[in-house]
């Protein structure tokens, strides 16, 4: 190290004082810094949770986002993935009981965001599977951009309606729904999962063989066409090619 790399105690003290002044309700020049810090966090959260912002409305979202960024400020200078804890944090707020689907809508937006920025990888092709009969032994890696969840609210239906810019009252059957995001190339694809589809992917993620996951999925719905379900998941890019060729 060519230069002194020891502690800088006065600088540290200055930084802590400055950070405290930003946190206080500041006037004059300090307000400029405070505004930049707060709006940087709020804008990042709005970019990452646009449907939550739409459901809450501008004014409420702004207030909620300021509260969140105070409770959970960024810990990295990369804001593209800021707000990982936002869905769970929303759920703990008193006002969330008036909009009980919003935490799950936030979870959906988070899964989509993670899929968007996940590592690139070659998806598993159907040719790899043709003619196989070793289903009881075959384990498949999930594609790195595959994200799925089972949610106890109709958040997927609500989220989809908001993407289509539906206005007015939200009227949905109150039921659980599953969601899968994949990104086999550059575009994120969204797929509704039923309970058997979710159980199948859950098993694959836990390391079950395709055969074991299929049997478990059938127990959720004896009428499920496992072959079609599996083909749909493969075609959606839910699995990574065996010999993963990650892009550099």
């Amino acid at each position, binding site marked *: 190290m060519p*230069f*002194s790399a020891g502690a800088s105690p006065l600088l540290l003290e200055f930084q802590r004082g400055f*950070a405290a002044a930003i946190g206080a309700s500041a006037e004059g020049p300090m307000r*400029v*810094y405070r505004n930049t*810090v707060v709006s940087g966090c709020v804008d990042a959260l709005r970019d990452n949770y646009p449907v939550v912002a739409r459901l809450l409305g501008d004014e409420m979202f702004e207030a909620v986002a300021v509260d969140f960024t105070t409770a959970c400020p960024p*810990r990295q200078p*990369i804001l593209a993935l800021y707000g990982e804890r936002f869905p769970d944090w929303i759920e703990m707020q008193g006002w969330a009981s008036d909009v009980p689907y919003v935490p799950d809508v936030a979870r959906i937006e988070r899964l989509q965001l993670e899929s968007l*920025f996940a590592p690139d990888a070659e998806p598993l092709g159907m040719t790899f599977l043709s003619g196989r009969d070793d289903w009881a032994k075959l384990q498949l890696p999930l594609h790195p951009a595959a994200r799925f969840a089972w949610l106890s609210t109709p958040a997927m239906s609500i989220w989809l309606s908001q993407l289509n810019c539906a206005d007015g009252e939200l009227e949905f059957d109150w039921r659980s729904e599953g969601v899968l995001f994949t990104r086999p190339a550059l*575009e994120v694809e969204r797929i509704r999962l039923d309970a058997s589809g979710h159980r199948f992917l859950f098993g694959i993620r836990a390391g079950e063989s395709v055969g074991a996951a299929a049997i478990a999925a059938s127990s959720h719905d004896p009428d499920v066409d496992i072959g079609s379900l599996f083909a749909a998941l493969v075609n959606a890019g839910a699995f990574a090619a065996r010999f993963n060729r990650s892009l550099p």
Partner: protein
Amino acid sequence: MRPAAGVGFKAEHFAEALAAPAADLWFEVHAENYMVPGGPRLAMLEAIRRERPLSLHGVGMSLAGAAHPDPDHLAALRRLVDRFEPALVSEHLAWSRLDGRCFPDLLPVPRTNEVLSRLAANIGSMQDALGREILIENPTHYLALRDHQWSETSFLCELARRTGCKLLIDVNNVAVGAHNLGYDARAWLEAIPEKLVGEIHLAGHTLDGEGTLLIDSHDAPVSDDVWQLYEAFVGRIGATPTLIERDGNLPPFAELMSERHRAHAILGGSLALAA
């Protein structure tokens, strides 16, 4: 990179940026926006990079913080530098990280001997990690800090002397700081030696709600006073890569390019003078 004019790249302008015919055009991006594992954002930047020189402008290394640069952040920047082979890599004379928290802003420091040593050490660490020289940008000022032991221009020159880094002179930051703190922008620029300047930034500013402070808002065209300062600066130091920065109120690509052409013409004039 030839001493030409470039523009800040925005995803909204992807198709036009890729197709732009302008000779010697280059693009700059905030490095942090591309520190993601994969996906379309990186693919878009690769497409741009195949056509044009690129500059990576960091906003999150917190070089003026009391701590060493974050090793993970250094490694992420190194990966971007290796992948995109930028013509220029720059960072700010600012801090944005403290006690595990990050502030999406460029916060100021008093120009003391202690800060000078810390900054020099941190710039050294960053240059070592990247295996190349970086540029350091002069900050915007809103607040007159006490305890300065150095003038800003001599502080910047001393940093360059100690570390071998070059300077990225943001002319708008100089104009904004001169207005807010009451110094002479022209004299400030005249104190910067030509051989230290590796890049110039031009951007717009706005007056704050109370009508007293200029804000380095990057949401308006470059102002007339900044153009005048720029022309005089380039007239003295010679043609230097110059970037039109725009982050808010994003105009059509053609509008940014007309500002870029204006800068390019000024650079061309200075090249002709030098010839």
